């Protein structure tokens, strides 16, 4: 790889070309243009949302493109939080996200561990069945899953309006199991053999050997589990019909019809703030996970 005369980290444009003023000028101006488009296109709508949340309704309607609000109406945020009960829907969203995350972690770590490390006789069949669900689009599950929630086997007590209706199906993510299994597959076998010789049972192997080595992949799976739960709309709309149980995503469309525009925009801002802050903190896990998604997701 280092045979290349220009060094290993060159791209499309060679370093020699980069030194030519014309090339440098073209590339730099193209990139500045791209940066401009990204700032206006990707960041712009969110900045607008921040500005509009602090403006009055009249101002948003009359002059949506003004750069700065006439006065900063922080009260919009407070009104959204308490008057339209955004605090309740926010708490619901957090509870749904945490429960879904726990369920996905439980299934993905134990499942991936059994299929990759313990490998009992039935591992092949189970693995095949898990992989097969990657081919089944979500739409197929919608109706029968809804009826299963109405009358779950064993329990026979409708889970409608219970968070379990969201938590339990969230665990059935083949994507997570496949990611965990592939990660465990790449751990050195010798470590497990050595721990077994030292008398560690399957639980110890998972808890004290496999999981501590899996922190990066657990981070990626966690980020996506929480984000997916935060974004989900159709499923919670179907199974959480009681407004007091609904997460933000389900509640916001109804609020739009009953709330003043300025307060509603403040509600949109509050609903977006947490995912964006999380993204800014865990950027690396987000971006790496997306690259991963391109390789496994079905």
């Amino acid at each position, binding site marked *: 790889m280092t045979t290349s005369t220009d060094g290993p980290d060159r791209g499309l*444009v060679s370093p020699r070309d980069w030194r030519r003023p014309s090339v440098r000028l073209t590339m730099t101006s193209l990139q500045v243009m791209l940066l401009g488009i990204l700032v206006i296109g990707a960041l712009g*709508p969110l900045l607008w949302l921040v500005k509009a949340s602090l403006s009055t309704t009249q101002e948003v309607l009359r002059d*949506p493109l003004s750069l700065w609000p006439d006065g900063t109406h922080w009260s919009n945020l407070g009104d959204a939080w308490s008057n339209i009960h955004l605090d309740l829907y926010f708490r619901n969203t957090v509870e749904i996200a945490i429960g879904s995350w726990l369920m996905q972690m439980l299934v993905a770590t134990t*499942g991936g561990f059994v299929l990759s490390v313990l490998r*009992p006789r039935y591992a092949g069949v189970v693995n095949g069945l898990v992989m097969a669900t990657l081919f089944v689009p979500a*739409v197929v599950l919608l109706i029968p*899953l809804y*009826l299963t929630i109405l009358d779950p086997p064993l329990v026979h007590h409708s889970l409608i309006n219970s968070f379990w209706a969201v938590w339990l199906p969230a665990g059935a993510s083949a994507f997570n199991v496949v990611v965990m299994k592939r990660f465990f597959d790449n751990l050195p076998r010798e470590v497990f053999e050595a721990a077994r010789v030292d008398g560690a049972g399957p639980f110890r192997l998972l808890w004290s050997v496999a999981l501590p080595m899996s922190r990066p992949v657990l981070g990626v799976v966690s980020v996506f589990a929480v984000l997916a739960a935060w974004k989900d709309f159709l499923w919670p709309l179907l199974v959480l019909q009681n407004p007091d149980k609904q997460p933000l995503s389900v509640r916001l469309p109804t609020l739009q019809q009953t709330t003043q525009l300025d307060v509603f925009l403040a509600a949109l801002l509050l609903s977006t703030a947490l995912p964006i802050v999380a993204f800014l903190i865990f950027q690396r896990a987000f971006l790496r996970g997306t690259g991963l998604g*391109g390789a496994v997701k079905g």
Partner: protein
Amino acid sequence: MDSTNTVRHDGKQGRARPSPVTWVRSGGLSTLVLAAPLLLIFGVFSWYPIVRSVLMSVQHTNLVQPATWVGLDNFRTVLSDPLLGTAIRNTVWFAVLALVFGYPVPLAAAVLMSEVRRARGIFSALAYLPVVVPPVVAVLLWKVFYDASDTGLFNEVFGWFHLGPYPFLQDEHWAMPSLVVESTWANAGSTVIIYLAALTSVSPDLYDAAEVDGAGLWTKVWHVTLPQLRGVLFITLILQVIGTAQVFLEPYLFTGGGPDNATLTVLLLIYNYAFAGSLGGDYGAAAALSLMLAAVLAVLSAVYFRATRSWSTT
């Protein structure tokens, strides 16, 4: 510690059927306990519903009376529904528009971004930002932007050029493109990141070789970069088609399928069969249409899966 020995042991695991006692002693029971979450959750919330959807498509179910066997009646109902053609046309139109808007732009952006030498992180963070915004928030925000009055945000921008005002969401012809533009804004970021990752794996030697042959910038893009990316380009193509074939959120929240069914998609039709007011409760028809859509998508998924397998090893 004789590691070579243990590896060899692991290698030949030809086992005879053990007795229950040795099965428990050798950890079979704890293995089963560890496998239980996966088996239970997948069994009840994935495998059983999949089987059930096939059964439901040939049954009449209204949750009150026991289900009755109706053969292919549900499929006939769906196929004779005049709205099915509309929904398929709209879904295909959405997918085509999404490809036109959303396929070349992320690629061009990623190629340009991969040449950024300083602060590349800012570019990718900005590009990915809309993906993090909850889809419902994005749609409701864009609904405000699409305001049909001349003081709506987009109409004001068009007004600078003495165009409009346009009734973006209220007009049969404008509605679908408006939905697609929002959807592209919301999703393009992850495609950019996938391309960026793929671009780092293009060997610099290939560019060197092309330059020795006197290739210019465009020749390099056309004859080195794109051929090297063809695997990932194909994968994102299939992923996007599978995604857009199941589009629901945008038409449901922006237009509710209107105006005059101009944005009624297949998934919205399924939802209407099962859950919407007067039509609702026809779970059999909904299951039948889901299966038909799934059959089409399963073919695409299989192609995708084969592609990722063969390309990930090269």
